């Protein structure tokens, strides 16, 4: 029985127990109630020491380390996010600059085109005007030539008529001949 074991292991018998009576069996040391007070006392001491070491020093420290690491990681992530946003902004600015440049180029091209067109138009107009002037002059000259030719024809006709009249033996009235010729030419 447990009591027997207890009695056998208590006091002086404790020291005597050894290899000699091991063959008989020491019983279960777990049921040796004389050692319970000792074990429980030292267990409580151990637990109290451990609890204070853990709750005062170790656990807050580890919690702080983990929190710090989490903070660092969060910060780094935030910084990365920031940089990413900045990169996106830069890209946007670049795209905008590109678009501006393109628009500028288009504008310049359009301007140049317009200028050239204007020059061209002007030149064309000028040329047209010149041509028109020349044409007018030519016409005028042709008119003049025609007029002088008419005059010549009139003169020749008058002279011829006078000659014909005088050859026929009549006294030619210069004024009448001229009127008749004019009348005839006007026809």
């Amino acid at each position, binding site marked *: *029985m*447990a009591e027997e*074991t207890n009695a056998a292991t208590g006091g002086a018998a404790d020291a005597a127990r050894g290899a000699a009576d091991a063959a008989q*069996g*020491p*019983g*279960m040391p777990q*049921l040796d109630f004389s050692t319970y007070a000792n074990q429980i006392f030292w267990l409580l001491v151990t637990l109290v020491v451990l609890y204070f070491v853990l709750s005062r020093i170790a656990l807050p420290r580890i919690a702080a380390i983990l929190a710090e690491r989490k903070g660092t990681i969060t910060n780094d992530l935030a910084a990365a996010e920031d940089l990413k946003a900045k990169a996106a902004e830069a890209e946007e600015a670049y795209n905008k600059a590109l678009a501006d440049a393109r628009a500028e180029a288009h504008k310049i091209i359009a301007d140049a085109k317009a200028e050239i067109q204007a020059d061209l138009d002007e030149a064309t107009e000028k040329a047209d005007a010149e041509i028109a002037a020349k044409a007018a002059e030519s016409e005028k000259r042709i008119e003049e030539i025609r007029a002088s030719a008419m005059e010549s024809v009139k003169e020749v006709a008058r002279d011829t008529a006078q000659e014909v009249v005088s050859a026929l033996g009549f006294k030619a009235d210069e004024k009448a001949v001229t009127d008749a010729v004019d009348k005839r030419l006007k026809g």
Partner: protein
Amino acid sequence: MEGDIAQLGQYIGAGLAGIGSGAAAIGVGHVAGNFLAGALRNPSAAGGQTATLFIGIAFAEALGIFSFLVALLLMFAV
């Protein structure tokens, strides 16, 4: 062979109690096997149930340990 009949009874009892360890082994194997079968059917849910697995194994094994303890008590303490 001069031991008394009580000692005989103790030793026979201890041996019989030892059978309980084998029974607990069957129980533990059952728990683990069924867990594995379920885990293979639905592996995504298995991870969250390891705690339950260990609790189940612990309960099954505790009874085997009890029988082992009975055997030891019979051998050494009675």
